[in-house]
């Protein structure tokens, strides 16, 4: 069996994606010693090689694992191509990926009332209507503090917490550097958790939530990818009934968005025990400091074992 691990890509999460790809490749080579696991950087040649006899005489890949984070990898783009070519791949299909990748759309589809109040606007709206009047309305309607973030993309790139009205415009300039639409959302405080959901033999299983405590107080890019900068608790320190509710919630998100195989839902549980949706990832990070590998290990599983099962499922799905 030839397995392509697609990582890299051309966006700001390229380096993170390459590290995710290496980690999964190593784990799969151990779990599937007879498989040929190849790490591939997405380019035109790769797309040409799918579904045809390659120049090297090898068959095309039997299954693809898209680990490109951000645009192309986590939206509908790459997955649509794979679907058109009829190539089995791990993870959500193009339609559900597109829904999940847009934080605004996803927030409207998750269990009712669980997304903090938000708006999502393109840059042209601010330009044409006049930013000051829009911001006045938004700040009054959503309240402070609020979070400004690109509507899509991950690793907290372009995300800023605004505690005062004058912080919002510079934060928008920053966020629009990562895309044409930006979300302004009420900030919620509480315990930050990442919940991995795995489709195991047709049964959705929530893995132990990972509790995230960044030492700087903000789970930004540096806190995510500098070993030591964040303290993780797996299992989380929350009461068992809350943990159970959070797991059930993540499964509900996975189902309501029509996701497949694996997802990671990020939530905040406030002091009243209310679960707030932040975002969902269909191609979550798998680096040394990422959250999903911690959850997998805490569940008594292995990264290689989980992905090997997902490979089988993907192949069976197409067959």
């Amino acid at each position, binding site marked *: 069996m030839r397995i392509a691990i697609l990582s890299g890509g051309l966006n700001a999460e*390229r380096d993170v994606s390459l590290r995710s790809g290496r980690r999964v490749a190593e784990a799969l080579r151990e779990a599937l010693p007879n498989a040929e696991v190849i790490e591939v950087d997405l380019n035109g040649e790769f797309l040409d090689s799918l579904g045809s006899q390659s120049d090297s005489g090898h068959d095309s890949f039997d299954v693809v694992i898209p680990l490109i984070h951000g645009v192309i990898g986590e939206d509908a783009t790459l997955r649509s191509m794979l679907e058109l070519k009829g190539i089995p791949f791990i993870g959500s299909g193009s339609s559900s990926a597109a829904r999940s990748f847009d934080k605004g759309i996803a927030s409207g589809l998750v269990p009712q009332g669980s997304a903090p109040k938000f708006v999502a606007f393109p840059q042209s709206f601010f330009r044409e209507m006049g930013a000051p009047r829009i911001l006045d309305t938004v700040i009054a309607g959503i309240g402070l503090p609020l979070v400004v973030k690109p509507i899509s993309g991950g690793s907290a790139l372009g995300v800023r917490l605004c505690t005062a009205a004058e912080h919002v415009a510079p934060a928008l300039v920053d966020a629009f*550097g990562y895309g044409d639409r930006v979300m302004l959302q009420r900030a919620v405080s509480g315990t930050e958790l990442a919940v991995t959901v795995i489709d195991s033999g047709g049964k959705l299983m929530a893995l132990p939530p990972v509790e995230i405590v960044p030492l700087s107080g903000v789970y930004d890019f540096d806190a995510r*990818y500098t070993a*030591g900068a964040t*303290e*993780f608790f797996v299992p989380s320190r929350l009461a068992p009934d809350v943990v159970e509710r959070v797991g059930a919630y993540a499964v509900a998100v996975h189902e309501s968005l029509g996701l497949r195989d694996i997802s990671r839902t990020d939530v905040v549980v406030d002091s009243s025990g209310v679960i707030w949706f932040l975002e969902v990832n269909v191609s979550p990070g798998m680096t040394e400091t990422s959250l999903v590998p911690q959850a997998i290990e805490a569940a008594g599983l292995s990264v290689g074992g989980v992905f090997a099962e997902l490979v089988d499922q993907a192949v069976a799905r197409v067959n």
Partner: protein
Amino acid sequence: MVGNRMDPWIDSYAQRAQGLTASAIRALFSVASRPEVVSLAGGMPYVSALDSEQFAQIAARVVREQGTVALQYGSGQGDQTLREQILEISGLVGVRSHPDDVVVTAGSQMGLDLVTKIFCDPGDTVLVESPSYVGALSVFRSYQCNVVHVAMDEQGLDPQALREALVTARVNNSPVKFIYTIPSFHNPAGLTQSIDRRQEILAIAQEFKVAILEDDPYGLLGFEGEPPQAIRSLDDQGVIYLGSFSKIIASGLRVGWVIAPHGVREKLVLAAEAATLCPSNFSQLTVSRYLAEQPWQQQIKVFQELYRERRDALLHSMQALMPTGTTWTVPQGGFYSWVTLPHQLNATTMLPRAISSLVAYVPGTGFYVDGQGAHNLRLSYCYPEPARIQEGVRRLAGVIEAELDLVNTFGVNYGDDGGRRSSPSLNPNSDLV
């Protein structure tokens, strides 16, 4: 309850390692290596201009004929023959010395590290130009130095500002260990000190009894006339000179050198031995043979012509395409031009948009330790071919236009951001080509 911080040694690291963290900027640069991106970021010499077959033959002969030396440990100070050849090269910028005063290093970056190691205790003050070479700032920070930027004008390091910085340090009872300067074809500013300016700076250093650490990797890569004479050519006791083969032969060889006063040299050799035992014999013998057998001065002329053509491509493209209000320096040699953005745009904030538009640069804040440089960026013209440079500038101009639109939409003024101030606009574009 204690959580997992993903690094069991996190509480064991030295204080100086605290700043070694991941950063979004570094992550963005990972995209710059893709062929779709025009990278005007890195200062990679264009080694494709070398005759690689000649190099292969030289390397083969080194192993075949000198293998027992090339593959063995060697002198901590470096190969004797190579040190003599280094003096021949340094003579082109007026540096006269004895081979005993030359220490061969793994690139001049190691020389920087060794000099800082033997001079600086934590908290010691080092004066650097404003802006300064990012690799030097990393070294100074790693030794926990107090780095103080000194302003530049069109001729480089400003003598008046230098004097004021030295007086301030004296008043604060914070003795300055050395003045770090790149007098020729400065990285990143692209400026060159005149001989008068060099004499003025040296006189001030001598008056205050402070050493000068002169970094001169680009000195032989001028586009007009004779190479600028090194400050070291004016004073062999007060100036420690760093040289490198990285830009005049190949950076992958990792061979540089320090020429230092006798006492400093002795300590450098001991520090070098502690760090690496000895520089690579294989690399040294390869360089030495290259210098002995190949027309290296002719090769330098090839590099000069190549980089001048690329510099011109950059300047012409910027003149034709950059939005009004953008200014930049006009380098007379070396690899870099220093750009000041219009309306105080923030080069760091703009970088993701640039990467999305498949062009890369280095934001100016990387060349400061104190947050300055937000409105600046460094462009390198050394690696991409002229047509790619033009395409890169076209993309960058579009990015700046889009950023201007964005900033105007939101009425953001980065000039008021966090009290950070811009470095001066060094040369207006009206002075250009």
